[in-house]
């Protein structure tokens, strides 16, 4: 029962955060709400006995990504300062039904499979050590790849984000 309550709380936090992040006008607020949603998810992970993942979620999403987003928001603020400008895209009315449709079909399909409700909950014990061992043995190649990817992505991000060479500037009016 307690579990139920915790779950509902966490779910509520997550959903509210997500909704807020998608609906607020102020982009900084949006970023902060998103961070909230990420945090809610982290809680749910914990509840699901995936502690390592939960902490990783907190560290990366709430800690790093949200901050990055805030920075990005701040950096891209100069151009469209007029607050009256619409925050939604012109064809937002198409997007919402599509999203609704997707949700509906997903939920419909979940509901349509009653076996999911009756799945037993096995006991798990997933210590960090075990995760580490598996990462170093079975998943070492993907791990290395991801490392490489991260490095490349960072380098790429830096390169893209750097100011362009003089050439283009001089071309600009």
């Amino acid at each position, binding site marked *: 029962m307690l579990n139920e309550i915790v779950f509902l709380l966490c779910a509520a936090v997550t959903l509210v955060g997500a909704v807020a992040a998608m609906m607020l006008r102020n982009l900084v607020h949006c970023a902060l709400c998103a961070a909230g949603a990420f945090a809610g998810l982290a809680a749910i992970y914990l509840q699901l006995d995936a502690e390592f993942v939960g902490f990783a979620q907190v560290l990366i999403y709430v800690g790093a990504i949200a901050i990055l987003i805030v920075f990005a928001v701040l950096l891209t603020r100069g151009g469209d300062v007029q607050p009256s400008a619409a925050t939604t895209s012109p064809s937002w009315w198409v*997007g919402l039904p599509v999203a609704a*449709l997707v949700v509906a*079909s997903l939920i419909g*399909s979940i509901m349509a499979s009653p076996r999911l409700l009756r799945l037993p909950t096995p006991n798990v014990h997933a210590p960090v050590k075990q995760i580490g061992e598996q990462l170093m043995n079975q998943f070492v190649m993907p791990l290395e790849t991801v490392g490489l990817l991260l490095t490349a992505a960072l380098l790429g991000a830096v390169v893209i984000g750097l100011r362009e060479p003089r050439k283009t500037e001089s071309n600009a009016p």
Partner: protein
Amino acid sequence: MESIVKYLWLIPTAPLLAAGVGALLPRRQRQLGAGLAIGAIGISFLLSCAAFLVTLHSGRVSSNFRWFDFGTTSVQLGWVLDPLGAIMAVMVSFVSLLIFVYSLGYMAKDENFKQFFCFLALFAAAMLGLIIANSLLLFFMCWELVGLASYLLIGFWFQKPSAAAAAKKAFIVTRIGDLGFLVGMLLLYAKTGTLLFYDNGNGCLDQTAVAGLVASTTISLLIFCGAVGKSGQIPLHVWLPDAMEGPTPVSALIHAATMVAAGVFLIARVYPLMTPEALQAVTWVGALTAVFAASIAVAQNDIKRILAYSTVSQLGYMMMGLGAGGVAVGMFHLMTHAFFKALLFLGAGSVIHCCHEEQDIRELGGLRTRQPITFATYAVGMMALCGVPLFFSGFWSKDAILDATHHWNGSPIPFYLGLLGAFLTAFYMTRQICWVFFGKPATAKAEHAHESPPVMTVPLVILATLAVVAGFFGTPAWPWFQNYLEGGQVGFDLSKLMNEHQLPLMLLSTALVAAAIVWSGWIYGRAAARPTRETDPLEVAQPTIFVLLQNKFYVDEFYNATVVRLTAAFAKFSDWLDRVFLGGLIKAVCVFALVLAWLDRALDEALVNESFDTGTETVRSSGRWLSRLQNGQVQRYLRIIGVAFCGLLILLLWGSR
């Protein structure tokens, strides 16, 4: 005997060489050229005489050689010595000699003097070759060369278009006959396997004697075609009068004594081959020609033309004689005619020469006193031709012919035609003599005429003598000539002259001739004496007939309107066939191919290429249409992904049931 046969080939070869060498001489070597020719013909004459002497005692000798091989056989040529050839050779070479000499004077002023003698020599060579030939093929070859020489000589004054045309006409008209001759010869060749006349019993004439071979009437007639052409018989006589465009010695040589005689000689030569039917045709053609030409001669005004028609007429007599009486009859007239006709032509030449090339008898007159020698000899010739009795050769030879036709069992008509011809001959010759020699000179040309140089008159005198003498060798009383030819013994028998066959005939013909001469002399003697000579008395009397005769029965016009025009039309047609029809056919094929090609090209461009282009264009445009979905709006892509996801999901969920 043997030796002379060995050298017989020299008779034609000597003048041939003279002609060849003469042709290579430069033009200014006039005397040398003439001397060569005269010398050569002199040699021929001597050789001929020698040969003639030989034949008096012995029979026929021949010498043959292989010309070339074909298949398993070969074509043989050769020469023969027999009385027929020998007497002919003597006559031809002698007349030629005289004419050559005469030409020295006649042609003295011509710039192509040397050439003239060269041609004359060629002519004599061809004629002599023809005479001694022992092969129908060699005969034919020489025959053609005679044609060539006559072509060259008739057209000698080539600057005159009429002369050139006459030469061409002569060659072509005789060639028509020659083609018949050629075909006949080839048929004969196929039949006998040889063209030699005498070849130790294997020649074609031998075979007639030994094996009784007689060529078919077709062959005989075809060969006779050649004679018709060459001897100017109806219907191929048209070339002969025109041939008077040549210099007068040429006329004398070719158209009096020798060339035209070749046709007669041909028939005489192949006489054993001729079938009776063919001989009938020969007689008829001869008889018709004799009267036909004589009647034309009555209305002619050109001195040489009259003689030419007279020649045609006399040739008709010879043919008639050959057909009805045999070789000797025809050949005898040939001999005598050769002399007196040469005489007449040369006399006419003398007149023309001295009257500045005036040939119209109406423009002459009164020459009797101005050219006495010419007149005398001409009169002899005229009387010989007319057949004035006893002393003139023509009388005897013509009488023999009339006698033969009288006894001919084919039909009596040729006999009467012959009589008519004799009458006409006497008539037109008297007319001519009257116009030319009697009366007053009609023009200044005649007025100032003078006698010809001796180089011309001497041959006249010689010929005149012969024209008289020759007749005595063939009188019924002393038929030496006939016996010589036929190989019998001859004896003098005056009674033959007086028998019941000969005498009435002689009297009849004498009466006719006398009547003609008197009548004609009465008419024209008076007309010639008149100061103006425009119209002919006959024309006044019978204008229609006279005009018809004067225009030679319109035969030339008839030929022009039919044969010549047909040939031209055929030529035009052939040309049209080539250019328009066949050429058009070819063009049509080309056009067809080109049309096809353009069609194909259009097909390629319009259909094959177009369908490809349209196909690719369709693909491209549909792609463009689809690419409108790709408007670069990321969110739209996302939406589409979403919808597609839903679709997929629904499909999966509900589809799996």
